[in-house]
């Protein structure tokens, strides 16, 4: 089973085993990972599941829609090159051991 590692702003890490096809947001919310809210239920409407994906996984990520791009522009924490909305990233074999950093704020 693929795994996802979430890194908190204080550096602490939690690793979850995640079924293929699950989004990074759903896995986090379902497992009580602090700092990922997903208030709109995964519709890329609220920008409260902002994460920074570690650069080594960048090539394996799905493309970014215009909507996601525009929502990220307005996320609460600073947007970086590696910013994504966790609700838009489904875990597949290529992302089997992905590591993401959680920004200091979502609201």
């Amino acid at each position, binding site marked *: 089973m693929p795994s996802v590692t979430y890194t908190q702003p204080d550096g602490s890490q939690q690793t979850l085993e995640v079924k293929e*096809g699950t989004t990074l947001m*759903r896995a986090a*919310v*379902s*497992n*009580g990972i602090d700092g990922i809210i*997903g*208030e*709109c*239920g*995964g*519709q*890329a*409407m*609220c*920008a*409260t599941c902002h994460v920074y994906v570690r650069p080594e996984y960048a090539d394996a990520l799905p493309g970014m829609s*215009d*909507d996601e791009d*525009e*929502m990220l*522009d*307005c*996320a*609460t924490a600073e947007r970086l090159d590696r910013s994504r909305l966790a609700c838009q990233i489904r875990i597949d074999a290529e992302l089997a051991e992905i590591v993401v950093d959680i920004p200091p704020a979502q*609201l």
Partner: protein
Amino acid sequence: MSVVIIGGGQAGIQAADTLRSEGYGGKIDIVAKEAGLPYQRPPLSKDYLAPGKQAVPLPVRGPSFFNDKDITLHQSVQALAIDRVQRKVQLSRQSLDYDYVVLATGARNRILDCPGASLPGIHGLKTLADAEALHAALPGARNVVIIGAGFIGLEFAAAALAHGCNVTVLEFAPRPMGRALTPVMSDWFADMHRSQGVNLRLGEGIDRFKSATDGRVGAAVSTAGVSYPADLVLVGIGVEPNDSLAVEAGLETSNGIVVDGSLRTVDPAILAVGDCASFPSVHAQARLRLESVQNAADQARHAARTILGANEPYAELPWFWSTQGPYRLQMAGLAGPKDDTLVLGDKTGGKFSVLCFRGGILVAVESVNMAGDHMAARRLLTAGAGITRAEAESEGFTLKAVAKTLKVPVPA
């Protein structure tokens, strides 16, 4: 100290979360009517019903949340009464003492009252159980009739169309989503749904349902006397606030549980938030009740802070969204039917915003497939930027460019 939260939806869970995360150390009980883990409702009428999607509810918080935060979740339990003198909430098998009650009881679907309205095959959509029933019924459905062209009805219309069904929508009013949208946006969505193949009948309500030979619903007869074949019907004619507990406890209600700016009822130990609360809106300059995730979550945070001693009036900017087929509608602020409107962007191409002005000042923005405009509008309206129509009409104006000049934090 003890807080009893009645309602296990987005508002109830958020109130508990904010109480804990902002330092409240007392007892928290959440009384939830439904079984299972509290789940998010917005996807139920959208992704959840799309063809080929796995139908797995998204929890509002994971199962460990309640233990981790020392919050007691009473599942499948109804609050029966509030004793304001003894300060007890009566449940079916026990009572809970309280210092504060947060009413987050939500709303229930308005019931259609016409001949045949209880025939098998006629559905509502509010709960996970409702969505599961529709998810199971859609792949086998052929002729779908939807009563009511509100958000739920039209989101469902798009889903049913994607399943290859023939879709008819009956709406008594002259415009779809007319209560929430400007006429220009409402008309655009009417045209869009028709061009996708929805038979949208405006100014035509439901008169009665006829049963098929198998005893299930077979047709919907409209107020125009037209009979539309139907093997699956969705009724989406709005909701009513769950305010009976408040009424029985002697609290004031008027299209919802009446609260003041701090979200307290007339009894300062009882607050109300979300779909069930009628509150004084600084944005509408009127008392109103809103049905949205934003309103539920922001009011819950606010009520928690009121309990913790804050005394600010609730003033968060309302925002809302709907997805209908390939179009994402986002609204910031509250549009009024008489607002002066200005369209920016490509209406024909389905990528545009409607700016709403009242007294010459920007008060609301509706956007289709323009997330950047929406987020910029939220920032501008929250900051009270006071954009005039003349500014918005000037050469090169964009909401995003103006929002970038603001030195205010991004709204939640």
